[in-house]
């Protein structure tokens, strides 16, 4: 976020965001209290976690297994809730 203006005089009129796609600069992973950990032995590649993740933080691999993008995952737990084989555990941050 270092390229963003600081003073009120420098802000774009109307508080608009005039640089599209900048949400990538906001690493929302730091908000997380619980962290999803995937046990790929239980994963059946149904991709429900990938579909349900509200933050596009489940990465679909070429082999259709999944990974978590921890830079953006907020730890909401929807993936763990939806997983039909209980392959995703929510683990306390820093507690593993």
């Amino acid at each position, binding site marked *: 976020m270092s390229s963003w203006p*600081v003073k*009120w005089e420098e*802000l774009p*009129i*109307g*508080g*608009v*965001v005039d640089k*599209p796609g900048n949400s990538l600069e906001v690493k929302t992973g730091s908000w997380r209290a619980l962290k999803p950990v995937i046990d790929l032995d239980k994963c059946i590649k149904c991709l429900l976690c990938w579909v349900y993740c509200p933050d596009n933080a489940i990465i679909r691999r070429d082999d259709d297994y999944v990974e978590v993008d921890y830079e953006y995952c907020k730890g909401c737990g929807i993936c763990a809730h939806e997983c039909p084989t209980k392959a995703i555990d929510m683990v306390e941050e820093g507690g593993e």
Partner: protein
Amino acid sequence: MNTIGKQVRLGLNGDEAVAYAAYHADVDVISAYPITPQTIIVERLSEFVYNGELDAEFIAVESEHSALSAAVGASLAGARTFTATASQGLALMYEILYIASSLRTSIVMALGNRAFSAPINIHCSHDDAYAARDAGWIQFFAENVQEAYDLTLIAFKVSEDKKVLFPSIVNLDGFILTHSVEPLTIFEDKKEIKEFLPDREAVNKIDPSNPITYGPLALPDYYMEIKKQQAEAFNSTPARIKEVFSEYEEFSGRSYSPLKKLYVDDADIVFVVLGSTAGTMRTMVKKWRKNGEKVGVLSLTLYRPFPSREVAEALKDVDTIVVMDRSYSFGSPGGQLYMDVAAALNKYGRYNRLINAIYGLGGRDFTPEMAEDMLHATKDPSIREIWVGVRG
């Protein structure tokens, strides 16, 4: 005076005059929901569109909340955008009022001033105008039908100006102006005012090839800077508003200024007033002057931004100031205009005797007899608040 636009003289009520102004402004989008007493405005505009006289999008919405929401989108897309409402309709628009201002739209809204419920009443109070006073809209008050027409055209020019970029409200007293036919002078056709009001050049226009996010989240790290920028920009608008008044005078021959004074300079008692009652008070003050009363009238054409310095300057040496409010602010130190005047005087170090006159609520006629009673009441040095013409 040699004016630039060709004009005609005719008789219209206030609503029709405003509709003609929006038509002559060649608006692109009208987004409105009918409500008394502004209904005639949008009825006329829908006729202009239906007849093919006005090439505009008339969006018939399901509520005032939607009316203003659609207007925000239209204005951000670069359209010259108009809406109109009154009373409960303005109340339903409330959350969008702030959004329209904060996103720096250029919407022009006519407000046919009407009392808030309950009890249900369709006649004039200034409740609705006052309710919008903090929302970041420029507000003009028309004193007569001519002013309703002129100020609507002026409002478009002001709101769309790149040094301004704030929406405007043009207030006209419900029924007293909206439904009274008066003679006025209007431009012959929309082409006559193109030079004063050319096609709009929008800032931050919605453009798919250059995407912008409007109204994003801004948390404690940015919200305050955004508000400071908005405050500075809003407070700087009067300079441009005065220039537009001058440009309009050159164009139309009709002169406007943020406030109007009659006999204020040497007066002992000055009445401060908004809207059509200014005319009544001017007539009364002229009569009282003949009887030796040193009285004057100060009325505001520009209500927001409040012309604090000019008001304080005009009133600084006046013994008694009677601020007339056509509304009541429950539990406040006084009516809404009273508080503005008191704060403006205080800001410039003045502590005059102030009296608050509450008058005309819900369309109660303000008669010359009531004005006499009000003047008489000021003679009692202990009086602070007068309810003019109330039974009891």
